[in-house]
């Protein structure tokens, strides 16, 4: 329902404005005679200058997709073009055009950061002087001056990650891929990293594709969120639109169950699209535009003799979106605590998803 299909019939003429185009991109892995379909028929178009997050749980196929787009992995079938070059037929041109920050450390642990930056610049065809200059500039930009001449294995996780990002930027690529860039970073470093990515996008207009399983990250950083599960795109839109389609959660508290029952009935009558559930003396209404509906509902209920004694309006999170789309929560920890809210669920749809989550 929230999936936006961007593919059009006139793809060939438009490809110069596209950073990434995939058609039926598929990757299978065979292990012990079992075939795992990691990515299934992905059709994607990402325009130049977009900042896109692939969001999904571990094993959803995000990294496999990224590895195919960066020439690390050959597709089982389907095609992909990055910066106008085919990832199978023209690997070298793809490699020249992209920057890649993998899940590991790009900088060799025995090496010094500055040396790695210079040799990376040389690998992309910069002259020795250009490579040195570029390395110095990135060291400054990414606040690495104090550690750039130390052996990489002695750096902290956050410092190494900044160095990895610097390595991905040496040749000022038009398309930058970041695979789980903030995994393993503390909140402070994560915030810094996000700021750097945002600045890079704003200053240079670099097309950025990152994978993440942090909802907050996708939400805060990306203009466009592509939700991937079981190797398929299940939603593709801005974070704001993905969430607004789901609606706000309005929680109403009453003095007794009777009032709550009456309120739930009124709420359903008032907005037939809403998902309403009652839990004792508490009624939860999931509805688009819930924050503007809430005051009206409170007034309405007061007049009807069922006064609201407690009110809470919570905007939807991407986790709610994921739950709504897949029946599973993206936060593993949440799966345990959801059985409570299952009783009295009045929506078949919602109760089905909750059972799925608890299972």
């Amino acid at each position: 329902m929230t999936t936006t299909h961007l593919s059009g019939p006139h793809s060939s003429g438009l490809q110069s404005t596209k950073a990434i185009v995939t058609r039926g991109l598929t990757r299978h892995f065979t292990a012990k005679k079992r075939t795992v379909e990691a990515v299934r028929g992905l059709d994607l178009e990402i325009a130049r200058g977009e900042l896109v997050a692939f969001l999904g749980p571990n094993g959803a196929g995000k990294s496999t997709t990224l590895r195919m787009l960066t020439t690390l992995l050959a597709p089982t079938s389907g095609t992909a073009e990055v910066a106008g070059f085919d990832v199978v037929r023209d690997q070298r041109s793809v490699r020249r055009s992209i920057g890649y920050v993998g899940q590991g450390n790009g900088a060799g642990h025995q090496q010094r950061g500055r040396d790695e930056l210079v040799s990376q610049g040389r690998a992309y065809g910069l002259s020795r002087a250009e490579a040195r200059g570029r390395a110095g500039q990135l060291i400054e930009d990414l606040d690495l001056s104090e550690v750039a001449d130390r052996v990489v294995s002695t750096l902290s996780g956050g410092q190494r990650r900044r160095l990895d990002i610097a390595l991905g930027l040496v040749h000022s690529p038009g398309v930058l891929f970041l695979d789980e860039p903030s995994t393993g970073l503390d909140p402070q470093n994560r915030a810094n990293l996000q700021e750097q990515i945002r600045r890079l996008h704003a200053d240079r207009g670099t097309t950025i594709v990152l994978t993440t399983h942090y909802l907050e990250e996708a939400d805060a950083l990306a203009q466009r969120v592509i939700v991937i599960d079981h190797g398929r795109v299940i939603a593709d839109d801005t974070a704001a639109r993905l969430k607004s389609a789901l609606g706000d959660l309005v929680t109403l508290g009453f003095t007794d169950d009777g009032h709550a029952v009456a309120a739930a009935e009124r709420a359903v009558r008032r907005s037939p699209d809403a998902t309403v559930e009652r839990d004792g003396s508490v009624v939860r209404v999931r509805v688009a535009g819930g924050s503007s509906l809430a005051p009206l509902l409170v007034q309405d209920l007061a007049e009807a003799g069922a006064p609201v004694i407690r009110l809470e309006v919570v905007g939807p999170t991407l986790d709610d979106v994921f739950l709504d789309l897949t029946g599973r929560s993206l936060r593993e920890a949440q799966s345990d605590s959801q059985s409570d809210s299952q009783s009295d669920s009045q929506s078949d749809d919602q109760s089905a998803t909750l059972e799925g989550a608890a299972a």
Partner: protein
Amino acid sequence: MSMMTDTANVLTRELRPLVREPFGMLISLMQPLVFLALFAPLLPDMGPTTSALQWFVPGIVAMSCLMGSSMVGASLMQEMVTGSHERLLVSPLSRPSLLVGRALREIVPTLGQTALIIAIVTPFSFDLHLPGVLLGVAILAVFCIGIGALSFALALASKDQDWLFWTVQQTVIFPILLLAGMLLPVDDGPGWLRFLSQLNPLTYVIDAERALFAGTFPAGTVLAGAGAAAVVAAVGLVVGLRSMARSS
């Protein structure tokens, strides 16, 4: 051109940590000398025309080159685990340069070791024939590029199972060394041993090297050595490139 530039780039990157740790490099330069000092006194007298050192030095040079290049995969495995190998794969560096540059990183120190050994043994019963030594070392280097590439492929096949890499490396390297008559001549051995020795490409490389180090240029021996080295290098590169294409 780009293949040369890329190889130089990979080699420079690989050598940098060595240059930054001169003490470690010094130790590694000394290793074959220790071996030589402990082994040479045990060598039998080989008659008035051939000195034992003249026979033994080419073998020890080949041994340190073979040992070094067979360990190319070990440093690769570390970089596979930490992630820098993946970064290099995404870079436009040509694939053969990734193999050859890494192999040369083990061969370059061998050149230093060779120079040091020769400088030390020449005052004793070793006659220096520089053109022969240079050609001999060049043939050896080609052979070791092949071994380095095979070691690279073995590391990719082992993934992060270090024990697998080391088990295969150790199991393969010593028979190759011994069957080539590197430490002891195989000429007086039983027929089956001599037969196996003839199947070993290193045998031809060593024979050529011994002739060249002695200042002789027997065409058949030198060509056989160069041919064996070229075949090993070609096989190594094909296997290495294939496994690189398939690995990720």
